[in-house]
C-alpha cells in the first residue's frame, strides 16, 4: 500500500516537473535578495547565514506544503484514499515522504550552494547538512497536519502559514542554533539529538493526526 501510493505520487511528480522546482527557485531567489539587501558584506552575511538558510528552508517547505493534498482533494482522489486505504497512515506516510524528498532532501542537497552564496565557513557546511537532513522530516510531518486541516478551504495558503510556522519554532531554533554553535566552536551534538527527537515524535504522532485531520476536512 505504501509502495502503491509512492508510485502514484512519483508519477504525479513527474507530470508536474515544472512546479517541482518552484520551492527551490524560491529558496535561491530569496537568498539572492538577502545578499543584495545585506550589501554583500561577507561578515554580515556569514553571521546570519545559519538563520537565513533555515528560515528560507522553512518557507520553501511551506510553499510546497499547500499542494500536498490540494489536487487530490479537488478531483476526489483524497476521498477515495480515505475510504479505501486500511490502514490510512501508510499511504499518507508515502505522501509525506514524497514531499520530504522534493523539499527537505532537495534543499539539503542544495544547501552547500546556499552556504557558498552567504559565505558560510566551509567547515560548518557538514553540520548544516546534518541539521537539515535530521530536521526537515519534522517539517514535512508537522506541515502535513496543517495541510490536511486547511485542504478544504479555498484560501488556505496564509492560514496554513499561520497554523504551521509557530509549530516550526523548535526546529528552527535547534537547527540554526547548532550551526551557529559550530561557528563559535562549541559542541552542538545536543541540538542535533534534539532535532532527531522532534522528528521521531513527529513521525509517531503526525500520521495519525493527519489521518484524523483529513477525515475532518472531508466531512462537509
Amino acid at each position, binding site marked *: *500500500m505504501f*509502495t*502503491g*501510493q509512492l*508510485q*502514484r505520487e512519483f*508519477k*504525479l511528480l513527474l*507530470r*508536474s516537473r515544472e512546479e517541482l522546482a518552484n520551492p527551490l527557485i524560491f529558496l535561491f531567489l530569496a537568498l539572492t535578495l538577502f545578499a543584495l539587501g545585506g550589501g554583500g558584506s561577507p561578515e554580515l552575511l556569514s553571521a546570519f547565514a545559519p538563520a537565513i538558510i533555515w528560515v528560507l528552508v522553512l518557507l520553501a517547505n511551506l510553499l510546497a506544503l499547500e499542494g500536498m493534498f490540494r*489536487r*487530490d482533494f*479537488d*478531483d*476526489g*482522489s483524497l*476521498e*477515495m*484514499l*480515505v*475510504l*479505501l*486505504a486500511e490502514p490510512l497512515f501508510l*499511504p499518507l506516510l508515502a505522501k509525506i515522504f514524497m514531499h520530504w524528498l522534493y523539499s527537505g532532501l532537495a534543499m539539503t542537497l542544495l544547501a552547500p550552494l546556499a552556504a557558498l552564496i552567504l559565505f558560510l565557513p566551509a567547515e560548518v557546511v557538514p553540520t548544516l547538512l546534518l541539521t537539515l537532513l535530521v530536521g526537515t522530516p519534522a517539517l514535512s510531518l508537522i506541515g502535513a497536519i496543517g495541510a490536511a486541516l486547511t485542504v478544504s478551504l479555498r484560501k488556505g495558503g496564509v492560514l496554513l502559514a499561520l497554523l504551521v510556522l509557530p509549530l516550526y519554532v523548535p526546529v528552527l531554533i535547534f537547527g540554526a542554533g547548532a550551526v551557529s554553535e559550530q561557528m563559535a566552536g562549541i559542541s552542538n551534538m545536543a541540538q542535533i539529538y534534539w532535532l532527531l527527537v522532534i522528528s521521531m515524535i513527529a513521525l509517531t504522532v503526525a500520521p495519525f493526526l493527519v489521518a484524523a485531520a483529513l477525515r475532518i476536512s*472531508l*466531512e*462537509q
Partner: protein
Amino acid sequence: MPILLTIKNLTCIREGRTLFRNLNLALNSGDCVQLTGPNGSGKSTLLRCVAGLFADYSGNLEAAPFLYLGHKPGVSALLTPLAHLRWFASMTGSTGDPLQALARVGLAGYEEIVCQQMSAGQQRRVALARLLISDGQDEQDAGEKRSRPLWLLDEPFTALDDKGQELIRQLLTEHLQSGGGALCATHQDLGLAGSRALALGGTT
C-alpha cells in the same frame, strides 16, 4: 440472503435543517435502492453517512464493504487511466484486470492518455472501471468473490452519453445478479427489475 446494509432510526440534522428523521432501510444482496428527492433533500448526505464520510448523525448504520462513487470522479487529472486503476488496485487489493475493465467501459486505446486530456464523460468512465476491477472478472463464481458487494453511487449518470448510461444499467444488472447490492442517488429512471425507490425530503 446476506444483508448488505441496515439503517436503523437514522436522523441527520444539518445547519438546523432536518434532512431525514428515523430513517429505516434494509438492503439485501440483489437489491437496488434508488434514492430520489428534490435538490438538498439529503441524498448525497445519506450516501456520505453510509460511506463514513459524514459522521454527524444519530442512529445505527451497518454496511458491508462498499465502493463509493461520489460527485467528483476521483480520477487524478495528471494520471493515465491505467496508472489510476493500478493505484486503486494497490489500495484495495483487487485483482481484476485493468486493461479488460477499460475496454469494457469503452476506453480501449485510451489507457496511456493522461486523464486531463479526456472529456468529463470519459473521466466518469474511468471511475466506472473501478467498479469493474473491484469485482474481479471471473463471471462464473463472482457471487462469492465480491470483496465489496455494496455500491454507493451518487449521481452516476452525470456527464455520460446514452451509451454510457446504458453501460451503468448493464453493470448494475450484472452486479445485482451476482449477489451485490446498490444504493443509488439519481433523478433518472434506473429501469432495473429489482429496484425500489426511497424518497427523501417528502415531509415539509
